[in-house]
Structures are given as structure tokens and as C-alpha cells.
């Protein structure tokens, strides 16, 4: 890097991040979250994978797929889950053009909790994660990508058309949604057991100190986790800012 490099344009302070894709209200966020974590009806069977492969947490494409999946499951805009997320460069017009996985940028935030979540999920349930990312890839440029994925994951476990892999993926999706909202991991099997035993209290584990600070549940409630706040000193004397500032 000793030689002179090409000049590059400097940027305005607000130019790095896109505006959120659409207006989000607390109701829509919670509705989508409830849909993702409650589930119940039938969806179309997934294609069989063309080839067996594991998810690579260092793959930009796989991270893009994971962010898209997470946004669908949580109802939170992808550039909020992954600040700096861009479907492609340059900034897309409206309506959004097709996502090109080879060009999409999965975010540029220094916290990068999404990497912890992708790694965590891949280590615990590699085949289930692969299933889910394949689902995203299949619906990548569907007219309503998020709803298509939710529909595919909403079915009754007794549906004879569903395979064990379908059912496992459904509960893994719930675990991922809960991880984003609570910063904690609930084993899919524990969530599945709730179906037959509603008195059961599922065990959970906080994914990491970083995950605790980044959990979305309290942010949706215009609050912050206990013991961790980056709000202005004295914020407690004022009503919280508008919801759009949080999500």
C-alpha cells in the first residue's frame, strides 16, 4: 500500500445507510414475530437441495441470506438488524430491484451480532440452517419474499405432507426469531415440546454479552436492557422518542 491509490469520493454524513424499506410499527413487528414463533398451518414442500453443503459463516452470500431470513422472522427491517445492509450497490431505486447475492452487502456495523447468531445456529443445527437459507434463496426475489417464507414455515405438525426436516426447520426458525428478540437461545426441541405440554418452561441460554445488549424485545418497547443503556444521561425524565428511532 505504499503506492498512491485511486481517489475515492468522500461521503456525506447521512449517505452510508439507506432509509428503512418501509414504515414499521410496533404492531407489525410484533405481529410478524408472533407469526414466526407461533406457527401452525401448511406450506409448500421445499425443493431438495441440489447438492449437500454446509453454511459458511464467512460467506457474504450466506450472511445476506441469513439477514433476509431474520428480517422475515422478526419483522424488523434488515438494515436495522444489520446496519449498512444493502441489497446491492449502488443505492436501489423504488421498487427494489432483484437481489443479486454476489453484490449484496450484508452490513457494515461494528457490533456485528448477526455473525454471532449465524455462527451459533450453524454450530448447533447446520442442516436446519441450510434448509432455511435454501428457503430464502428460493424466495429471494418473490413478490412478497417475507410473507412467502413465513407461509412456508407456518403449518401443523400433523400435516402428512411435511417431512421431519420441514418440522425441524419450523422450530429452528422460531429459535432464531427468539434469539434476535431476546438475545437468548431456546432449543428447537424445547419449543416443539411446548406443543404438547403448555406447562413446560423452556430453558434458555444467553448467547453472549453482546447478544444481551442487542436483543430487540426491549428496543421494540422503546426501552433498553437492564444494566445496559446507550441513551442520553437523564433520558428517564422524558418520554421515549418515537418508535421509528428504535426500530
Amino acid at each position: 500500500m505504499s503506492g498512491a491509490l485511486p481517489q475515492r469520493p468522500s461521503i456525506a454524513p447521512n449517505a452510508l445507510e439507506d432509509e428503512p424499506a418501509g414504515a414499521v410499527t410496533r404492531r407489525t413487528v410484533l405481529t410478524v414475530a408472533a407469526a414466526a414463533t407461533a406457527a401452525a398451518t401448511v406450506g409448500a414442500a421445499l425443493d431438495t437441495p441440489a447438492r449437500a453443503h454446509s453454511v459458511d459463516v464467512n460467506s457474504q452470500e450466506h450472511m445476506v441470506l441469513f439477514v433476509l431470513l431474520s428480517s422475515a422472522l422478526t419483522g424488523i427491517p434488515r438494515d436495522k438488524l444489520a446496519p449498512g445492509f444493502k441489497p446491492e450497490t449502488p443505492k436501489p431505486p423504488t421498487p427494489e430491484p432483484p437481489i443479486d447475492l454476489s453484490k449484496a452487502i450484508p452490513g457494515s456495523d461494528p457490533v456485528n451480532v448477526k455473525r454471532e447468531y449465524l455462527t451459533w445456529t450453524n454450530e448447533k443445527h447446520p442442516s436446519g440452517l441450510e434448509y432455511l437459507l435454501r428457503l430464502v434463496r428460493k424466495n429471494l426475489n418473490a413478490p412478497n419474499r417475507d410473507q412467502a417464507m413465513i407461509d412456508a414455515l407456518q403449518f401443523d405438525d400433523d400435516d402428512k405432507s411435511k417431512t421431519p426436516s420441514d418440522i425441524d426447520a419450523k422450530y429452528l426458525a422460531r429459535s432464531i426469531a427468539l434469539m434476535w428478540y431476546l438475545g437468548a437461545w431456546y432449543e428447537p426441541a424445547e419449543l416443539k415440546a411446548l406443543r404438547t405440554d403448555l406447562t413446560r418452561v423452556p430453558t434458555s441460554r444467553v448467547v453472549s454479552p453482546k447478544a444481551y445488549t442487542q436483543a430487540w424485545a426491549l428496543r421494540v418497547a422503546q426501552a433498553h436492557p437492564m444494566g445496559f443503556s446507550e441513551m442520553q444521561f437523564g433520558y428517564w425524565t422524558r418520554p421515549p422518542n418515537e418508535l421509528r428511532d428504535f426500530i
Partner: protein
Amino acid sequence: MRTEGSLAVGVIGILAMVGLLGWTASAQAPPVTLVCDHDPPADTTQIDAALLIKGLPCAEKVSPDGPFGDALANLQHGFDFYSWLTFLALNAPADGSPIDKAKPNTPTKWEQPSNFKQLLDVMLLDGRSSKWEDKKIIPPECLAQYNKLNGKVMVIEMIEESFNEPFKTGPLIDQQGNYAIFDILMNKSMFDYIQDHNLQSRAGQQSKENASLKVDFPAGANRAPGDPGAVMIKVSWKVLDSPAERQNFHTVDALVLTPRHPNETTKPPCLRKTLGLVGFHVGHKTEGRRQWIWTSFEHVKNVPEQQEVDNKQEQGPYNFYKVGCDPTQCPVNQTPPTPWEPTYKNGLKFHDSKFRSQITRVVALTDETKEMNRQFQAILGNSVWKNYVLLSTQWPSDFRCAGKKDESRPPPPAPATDFKKEPDMNCAPAPTFLANSTLETYSQGTDPLASSSCMACHGNAVSQQVRPPDMKPEDFFNQSDFTFMLEKAQGERRR
């Protein structure tokens, strides 16, 4: 990076640039201008000697696009490049000679009272106002020596913040048994804002006129004529008793007044010492980065990285680490035994004559930062400045958040920073954590809210403002714009 932390530098008043020379008030050298460069070079510029004279950037110039990796990596590179330019500009010889030819004791621009003022020269004992041109008030215990030296000496009046690390986590003791000494300074832009709003006085801060003030220091911008806005510096010094080691540091001839003890019947000693620069923080507020940009440098021989220790790759000797000392005898990153305050009897020597701090760097420098350090060190000739390394630069990575203005009515005065951003008023600092081994020694690491983060810490700084009984709590806004300096205002407390 707590306490006044960390950063800074300077220069210039409202219109621009300027700064005279000479550390001492009575310096005879002609004034030299410390120029604020409103068109700083892009970070893709070749790193060669031409950069040594570019001057202080009025603000950052960065881009997410470039050859250094992803967007985050490109931006980090841009801010690190800005930090090196800042370091070179502030430490350039005050007489205008080239920095690569500087001698160890060549006075720097930031050491000139025309460019930067020490905190205690602003927060005067009785809270009275002062002018930028006012001469330094020399403590009576040091006055005779000061006059004998014709004022050509730095004077450091120690307070707790001069020896105790942020959050009162303890002092740092070097391998010769001396305290590391800390000092805090501000530029004229900060000074003027403080004086204009009567914030140098505790009573002034607590006045009814200031109850509704949202402290909002000027911000630098890359436009003519070149106003850097608010810049603050925090430095750390090592006492250099040995003439031999003075060749490896930037040094100053100093009179150090040890902290006053109210229960002592005698006066604190004022000790003439040669001090070597071991840590250098700069905080710079710019229009696009209203959470300030936080730059941290230190001497290359301060401490080894922990991973170097683990791999037995230390390259000592170090200023704050003894190679080969058994961990049971020299536990790493531990605070010294109490009491921590310097005593009149021992001067700047720690009371436990056998104790030495055994410090390692917990978070290693990135390969990219090491490479940039190598390139800048290569253009610094044989000057002592090649012995300093950039640790990193912390900057607010959410640019939309960082540039947000207060839109309340009537519009607040410029720069009208919005301090009510939620949920993260720090706008996603990058990197999340940053610690200098001499200035945040005991808060290194990566634990949320516990490990050192310049913005996360300074974002909690407040003033001594008071809410009047007839003001609604939600209308009262007590913050001090990322500086702890205002806490040091003195004078009569409101009753």
C-alpha cells in the same frame, strides 16, 4: 477513555487556524501558525514525507468505498489516516521545522499555550473567567524554580486525575517505580465556548441562565477558512530519571507539583523532572461526527500485547512490563496496593518501592493498523516520533445518527446537535472498545459497559447544571457534550 479524556488537539479559534508557539508563556520564539487543513488528503494518498506538513485536518475525509476491504474496513482506514495526520500536526515542532528532524525535546505545537490550555488554567480556583491570552498562573510552590528557568519549562499541577485512572481505578507505576502522570488540555474553540457560557465556574453552570443550556461545543468542518471546532487532548507522561532513555521519547522539561493534601502542614513538593510522552489521546468534534472522533496513540515500548506474552514473543524492555517475571510475582493488569495518592515524602515515587505495574495490552492492534503505523513510522526519519503507534480511532459508524441535528423550535444555536438520539446516542461506535494501556489501563477488554469505550464513557459526562424548581424535569437537559472537563469547574456552590 474516561476523564477528560482522551483526545484532542488543536488549534485555532473561531476563524481559523492559528496558534503561536512556545510552551512557556514567556517564550521568545516568533509565533507559528498551526494550520487547520480544510481540504485534507484522501486516505488513498501515498504515505510519504509530503504528509508531514499537511497540518491538522479540520474534519475527517472518509469513504466506505476503496481498496481496503469492506465498507467498515475502508471507513476505519480513513479515520486511522485522519488520526495519523492529526498526530503529526499536533506534535510538529512549534518552530515550524520538520517533524522528522525533531529532537526528543523539541517543543511541539500542542504544548504551546497559544494552541492549547491545560484544564486547570481554565477551571480557575475561584471560578473566575479568563482570556485565552492570559499567562499561566504558576503555583507558588513552583514559582521560584519557574522564574529561575525563565519560564521555559512545562508546569503540571497534579490533581487526582493526574495520577488516578478513569473511574478511580488506580495509578500506573512504571518499571522505575514512578507514577505515570496525566494531563488534560483544550483548544481555543472549547475555551471560548466555556467562557462565553460561564461554564468555567460552578456557580455559572448552576445559574438559572444556564439551566436550559444544551452544552454543544463547536464542530469542525472541511470548508474554508478552516475551523477545527472543539479539540481536546489527554496525555500521559513517564518520569525519565535516566539520561539514556530520554533519547527514545518525546520529552519535556517540567515542574511537577505533587497533589495537595489538606491534612499536611507543609507545602507539596514541586519537582523538576524530565518527562517522556507515553500516551496521547485526541478528541475532535466535527459536523459529521458529533460524538467526536477519538484518536489514541502511545509509545511503542509501553507494554507487550497479551498474545505476544502468551507466545513468548516479547521484545522488551517495556515501560510498564517486566519480561520474564513470574505471573505469581507480577500478576498482569492488577492495580497497585493502596494508598494510591503520591506522598510529599516520596514525591513521584510510589510508596511501595518494590511495586511495578505489570501491564499487557488485552486487545491487540489490527493488522491493518499495524501496517499503517509501519508506513507512517517509515517517514519519520530517526526522530523519536517513529516510536509512537496508533492504537485505533473510534468513530460513530451510524452516519445518519451521527450527523443528526436538534429540530426543536426555536432552533438551537449551531451546531444544534441532537443529543436525544435513542436507543444509541453514541451512534454505534467503531471499534466498540478502545483502550490505551497508559490511560485506560484497568478497563481494557471487550465487556459491554465495563470495558473502555471512548464514546460510551464520555457520553455519560454531565455538567453541574441544576434544574430550577419551576422547570419541568423533561425540559431539563444535563449533559456536557462528551467531556468531563466541566466537572472540574470550581467556585462557590449554589446554596
